[in-house]
């Protein structure tokens, strides 16, 4: 009887440890963002900020002033410009954006359009204050319909 109890304890312990090992989240799972998906015109809230997807438009070429210089960018795909209204909730936060295309591929905002006033990477969101901003993606044209914008934060 006591052997059976001892065996049960060992088996139970092994099962417990195996369960812990199997369910231990890897590094990527720990640091990945908690995603809130928002359709165009809707508002969403995450732990650190709230956002409204105001509008979007596309362009084959974009021109902008950056640090006092006029810059023009062309693309082999299409530029997608997304207008957002963002506000901080609990803590001052900087925000980065991604576009999840129709194929579920995730696109970071383009670094070819940078240092433009009101662009999302210039924002320093503050609790209780909202800001209108925009972000620009460079994508294949077929990734726009059915896609969604997402926000990620950094401190």
């Amino acid at each position: 009887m006591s052997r059976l109890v001892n065996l049960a304890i060992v088996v139970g312990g092994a099962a417990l440890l195996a369960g812990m090992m199997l369910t231990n989240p890897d590094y990527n799972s720990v640091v990945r963002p908690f995603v809130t998906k928002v359709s165009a015109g809707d508002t969403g809230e995450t732990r650190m900020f709230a956002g409204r997807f105001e509008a979007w438009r596309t362009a084959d070429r974009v021109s902008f002033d950056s640090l006092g210089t006029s810059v023009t960018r062309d693309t082999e795909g299409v530029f997608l410009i997304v207008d957002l209204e963002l506000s901080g909730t609990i803590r001052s936060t900087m925000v980065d954006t991604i576009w999840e295309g129709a194929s579920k591929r995730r696109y970071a905002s383009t670094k070819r359009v940078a240092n433009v006033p009101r662009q999302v990477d210039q924002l320093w969101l503050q609790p209780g204050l909202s800001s209108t901003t925009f972000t620009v993606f460079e994508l294949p044209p077929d990734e726009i319909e059915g896609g969604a914008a997402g926000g990620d934060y950094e401190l």
Partner: protein
Amino acid sequence: MKRIAKPLALLAVTLLCLGLTVLLVGWSDIQELRRAKNWQVTEFPDPKGELAGVTVSVDQARAMIVPGKTDRAVVYLRLGLSGEAMADWGWCNVSLTDPKGREWFPLFNEVGNTAIELLGDGGNSGQSCDSSLRSPPEDGGPSFSDQAFLVPVDMLDKLRVELSGVNTRPKAVSLPFKPVLRLPPG
């Protein structure tokens, strides 16, 4: 009874070992979590307090409503730190907090620099809280630093400034302040 006692003892030892393993593996994470946030905040009734051998004070507090955006204001604070133990703080963490636990960090951009220039009255120390820890005046007086924040206007009379150092956390100090409202230039 005796036959049951031994397996129970083994079970207890197993659980103890499990607990020790979790503690050992998670020790660095527990320490990191402990130092990641101001868990023990001492609230002082006046704009002067003490933390880990360093006297902290709000020397100047001014605010200005942002022209064209009347829902927000920039707040300028000149903080003074003094004491032998300043170097022991490590890095400095400054934020404004409200009764709901929301937290505003200093502006490290052009808006912040402009706010410090406009509201500092030319008496700016030209240094952040971190650099003020490392350059105490030789006369033993307070080492000053300047910081600017962007906050909602309706929060101006409800904010406190919270300070801690990497090596003081989880302990932090919280001081009240009443900013003097200034008109925008022009």
